[in-house]
């Protein structure tokens, strides 16, 4: 009797363990890394949809990093250690060159096979180019982005100010509104000024507007009249009282928070903010927000910074084929539309901008497509973190008053050539 009980016990244990082994053999868990500012809650909904359609695949979302540079610092350590913990990573549009040089991203050409050209041609050209490094596809676009000018429709209407078509108009309009409102908490205009990635655009947007550029390889010269005009714009705004004195402290999401609380007239912000202004529980500005392209100088053309996030498959992932399948799902027109409706993420497919549901949630997307198509890219370099640091820390120093225009530009000139070699 005892022997029978023992044998049957062993058989039961064996059966159970084999059964669980079989079950776990069917279950693949993929881990996707995203930043805190890229709506991880929406990504969770999307990957849950994927899991429903693909039983046996479980997708975990890991959230990290409040800013683009902080995320990359964390990823630097994980990837330099060749850790296989992450399968898919959401990377900023500026990163594919660096990831290709380091060998961190798995080239997708072999997985796309014969469809490669067809797949890549469906995307907006800027993102097709950003993700192909040395002829290899390093990542697929998740959502597009660019910087826009958000403004308070109610305040502009109340004081008879038109949405500005030039920086000079913006300064005049903001001064008029601030003087009339007399609200100490109200600020005219804010852009990123802290030493974060977004501050690179704070320097580049007026630089491009003034006809200058950083230079890609070759001779780098920032001590040009265009660069002085670029930094001069921010000091003009400061002396006009349009930007707050602590601009050097301001990070991207703080601008959104200030605008959402009703304390800002104009904001230089990315596309994601619209959904927060309209949908957040604590928003004070619902239905009072207008979005137009960023202005240029009166005597020049407008310019804006391109953004957007891409999905790369880690070269150290243990489930590369499954990860590529997930990436192709996330980078499809269906999901692009879902993101646009749920998070006001700009689509990477031109046709999605005209979709009725998308336009209902984001009426300004009809104007957004030409902006995204003409938005300009930051320098493409495998040493981009160093390039970005030089530009953003000197811009930050200038905004804080630690360096004059000449010092900031000459310091940039001293360090950029080595970084952009």
């Amino acid at each position: 009797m005892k022997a029978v009980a023992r044998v049957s016990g062993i058989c039961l244990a064996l059966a159970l363990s084999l059964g669980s082994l079989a079950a776990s053999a069917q279950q693949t868990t993929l881990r996707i890394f995203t930043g805190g500012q890229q709506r991880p809650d929406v990504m969770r909904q999307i990957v849950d949809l994927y899991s429903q359609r693909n039983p046996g695949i479980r997708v975990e979302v890991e959230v990290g990093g409040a800013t683009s540079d902080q995320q990359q610092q964390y990823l630097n350590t994980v990837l330099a250690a060749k850790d296989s913990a992450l399968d898919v990573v959401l990377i900023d549009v500026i990163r594919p060159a660096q990831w290709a040089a380091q060998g961190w991203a798995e080239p997708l050409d072999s997985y796309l096979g014969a469809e490669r050209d067809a797949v890549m041609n469906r995307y907006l050209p800027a993102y097709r180019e950003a993700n192909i490094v040395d002829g290899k596809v390093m990542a697929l676009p998740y959502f597009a982005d660019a910087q826009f000018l958000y403004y308070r429709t109610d305040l502009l209407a109340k004081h008879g100010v038109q949405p500005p078509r030039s920086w000079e108009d913006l300064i005049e309009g903001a001064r008029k509104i601030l003087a009339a409102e007399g609200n100490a908490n109200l600020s005219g205009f804010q852009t990123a000024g802290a030493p974060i990635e977004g501050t690179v655009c704070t320097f580049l947007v007026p630089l491009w507007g003034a006809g200058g550029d950083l230079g890609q390889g070759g001779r780098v010269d920032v001590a040009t009249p265009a660069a002085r005009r670029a930094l001069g714009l921010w000091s003009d705004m400061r002396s006009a009282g349009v930007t707050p004195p602590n601009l050097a402290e301001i990070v991207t999401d703080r601008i959104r928070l200030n605008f959402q609380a009703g304390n800002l007239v104009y904001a230089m912000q990315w596309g994601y903010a619209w959904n927060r202004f309209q949908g957040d529980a604590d928003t004070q500005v619902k239905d009072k927000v207008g979005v137009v392209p960023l202005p240029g100088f009166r005597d020049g053309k407008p310019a804006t910074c391109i953004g957007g996030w891409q999905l790369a498959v880690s070269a150290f992932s243990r489930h590369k084929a499954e990860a590529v399948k997930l990436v192709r799902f996330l980078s499809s027109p269906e999901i692009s539309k879902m993101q646009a409706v749920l998070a006001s993420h700009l689509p990477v497919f031109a046709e999605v901008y005209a979709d009725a549901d998308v336009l209902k949630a984001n009426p300004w997307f009809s104007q957004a497509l030409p902006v995204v198509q003409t938005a300009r890219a930051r320098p493409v370099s495998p040493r981009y973190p160093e390039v970005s640091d030089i530009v953003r820390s000197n811009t930050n120093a200038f905004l804080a008053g630690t360096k004059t225009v000449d010092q900031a530009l000459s310091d940039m000139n001293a360090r950029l050539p080595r970084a952009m070699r």
Partner: protein
Amino acid sequence: MRVGPLERGERWLGYAMLAPAAALLGLIVVYPVVRLILTSFRQVDQGSRAGEAPFVGFENYAYALADPRFWGATGNTLLYIVLTVPAALVVGLGLALLANLPFRVKWPVRLGLLLPWALPLVFAGLIFRWFFEYQQGIVNDVLLRLGFEKLQWLSSPGLAFAATSIAIVWKSSSFVALVLLAGLQAIPRELYEAASVDGASAWQRFRSVTLPALRPAIVVALIFRTITAIQTFDIPYAMTGGGPGESTETLAMYIHKTTIDFLDFGYGSALAVLMFLVSAAATSVYLRRISRAEDAR
């Protein structure tokens, strides 16, 4: 001296027992340091292809010595040391004297003294960042209520340095206070009683009884505080990220930026070796002064 077989056996047993610890130490300390020094002579950065690490001699060091950002960071580190070490000592001494008063219930005092030290540095940095925030910070709120103007604590270079120093002193003075409190408690009561019988005032008692008896504890606290001050990283990193510009960037932060952010391991290693030399110089100055003082006694 002839070593007998028994002693020889014991000596070998001694070596054998030390061997695992020595191996661990070698792995954790010696190997990384040697590797660091070797890397500092190579070019290992994001531009070079994976696997390539050409030998470049002293090029990284030459670049460091000509790098204004390196000198700025070193200057900031030295300034932090000069400001925060004495300040932490003074504040810590005051706290220790306060905590040494005869309280009926001792544990709340000890807890209050212990909490800042127990708090992780990054938490302290983030908390103080919120305190000093321009529009919503509590410090500016108090200033406004007292009739002053709001100050741009974290976006103006001098004030940012002051704000980070305040946070560092707050955090480190509790450690100094703990060390000094232990020293204070060891001073026998009779010395104070004898001094007051001789007609000494409170200040004279402090100068002639307390301070001399506290000397060893002060030395210990100073050494620890200085070594940590050389490595200042967490609080300025969490509070200002080195900004505005690079006015609160310390040497440890610059090394972190170069290695973790830029992935320029060659240059970062050179900077780390230079930082080690600076720390070694500073600590040897200390030790020599202390041993001289001890010999003088």
